[in-house]
């Protein structure tokens, strides 16, 4: 999911804010939506991160990896309390925002996995999304989240275990 910022840079080292957002905004929203499972929250998270980035864009735009920097801001915004608080208010409605819709081979499995992933505890879900959606290495996730690599591995492992269990239960019920 690493999208190059082609065309968004006004120079080799300093991408223009508007241009960068135009190119990277969709990917940030997809990440936020995968983290939150809710379109409104995804927009809120990304806008919050960008609003925080904007006043210091001159400095941010000169860091080595602008994408990683802003992605960290999105993840931080997601993990902020008010986001979690809002999630508790309407968890069912959020799950219904899923766009995995329509018939097709693997549809049921993907939908179950998506919903099961959204039901993970926030810390596990974040680690799982960064690992399997953003395709980041454990070390990269550790750097992004400020956790030790071992903690990241543990969260991903626990998340996968929960997903396996969830799918097993679902399939078991379906079999009956």
């Amino acid at each position: 999911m690493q999208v190059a910022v082609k065309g968004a840079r006004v120079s080799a080292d300093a991408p223009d804010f508007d241009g960068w957002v135009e190119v990277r905004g969709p990917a940030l929203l997809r990440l936020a939506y995968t983290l939150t499972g809710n379109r409104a929250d995804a927009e809120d998270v990304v806008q919050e991160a960008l609003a925080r980035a904007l006043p210091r864009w001159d400095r941010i735009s000169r860091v080595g990896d602008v994408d990683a920097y802003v992605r960290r801001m999105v993840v931080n915004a997601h993990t902020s309390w008010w986001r979690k608080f809002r999630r508790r208010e309407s968890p069912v409605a959020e799950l219904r925002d899923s766009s995995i819709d329509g018939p097709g081979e693997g549809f049921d499995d993907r939908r179950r996995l998506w919903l099961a992933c959204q039901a993970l505890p926030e810390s596990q879900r974040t680690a799982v999304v960064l690992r399997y959606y953003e395709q980041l290495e454990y070390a990269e996730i550790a750097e992004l989240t400020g956790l030790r690599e071992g903690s990241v591995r543990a969260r991903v492992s626990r998340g996968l275990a929960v997903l396996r269990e969830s799918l097993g239960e679902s399939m078991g019920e379906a079999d009956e």
Partner: protein
Amino acid sequence: MSDLEQRLADALSDGARGAPPAVGLAGAARSRARARRRNRLVGAAAAVALAVGVPAAVLATHGSDPEPQNPSQVANDPDAAGPDARGGYHYESWHHVTIEVPDTWGYGTLNQWCVDDGMEGAPRVDRPGGVQTLVLCTPGSGYGVSFAPKQQGGEVDWPVAEQHSDAWPDGAFVGAVTVGGVVVTVAAPEVNVALEVLGSVRAIGPQGDPNGCTSSRGEAPPMAVSDGAMRICRYDAQGLLEQSEVLAGEDTERAVAALEAAPEAADSCMRNVTDVEPIVRLDTSSISVNVDLGGECPTVHGHGVGQDRTITPDVLYWALSPGWSGSVPGDVSLPSELRRR
């Protein structure tokens, strides 16, 4: 990548297609940044008011309003304090107030957060007094909670607000409230923690704080201590509560053993009963002693240990609750390390 991992990656990629369209993102971010800037200016004024002292903060908030706002009214309700802290939290008391703070918070002064004390800037509980290093940190204060006596001029009742200034870590959520003549200021990286800690401030009533310690050593002994527990109430030279704690299980056994192992004190020391010195009161179901930390008679004395005993490093190890910082009489030796938890 296992089959499940691959299917998971596919499911997340498919699901991500449901994200909202990126229309007007930059413009929306600009609007929000402008709103944040307006809030930041208000927040900076709040930080300055807190930094320059209580009277200024009071004038800026409530002026001459003598009635505290709702948080203080709730906080003064002694019945509102439950006997048990919520999970992951514990009680910290100072003078006439008690609060709940996360177990992960340490001890130390907020304006010394940058000093290498092994806490790496973690939130801490800050009591007035104690030892300070001559170091100026930027920002001026770190995360944690601080107690301070209310100054003349009124009470601080400062709602939790996000701060962006040199006074606090950028983005810290800071609030303050005055209860029982004590200003409690909380700074936390997450707003819910700041709200929870600040909302837990309670005045200590006649029955004592949740650990069973009264706010003044002159008050009647509070409730009995349960079997297997030891209540530790530390009082300052003015006789006001500095810190409270309850030991349990093996810790209690070791603390009692330290008291019983302390040698008997010499008979030559005559205690002036009118003296008020820093003391630590230790109570179990069968022992009730004071550890005198000042004056002419630095001894352990009371009921359940026979004659007065000398203060040994082992006794101090248990009597001085985590975070203690100060001095002891010259002929008393501190333990090689102080209790951290």
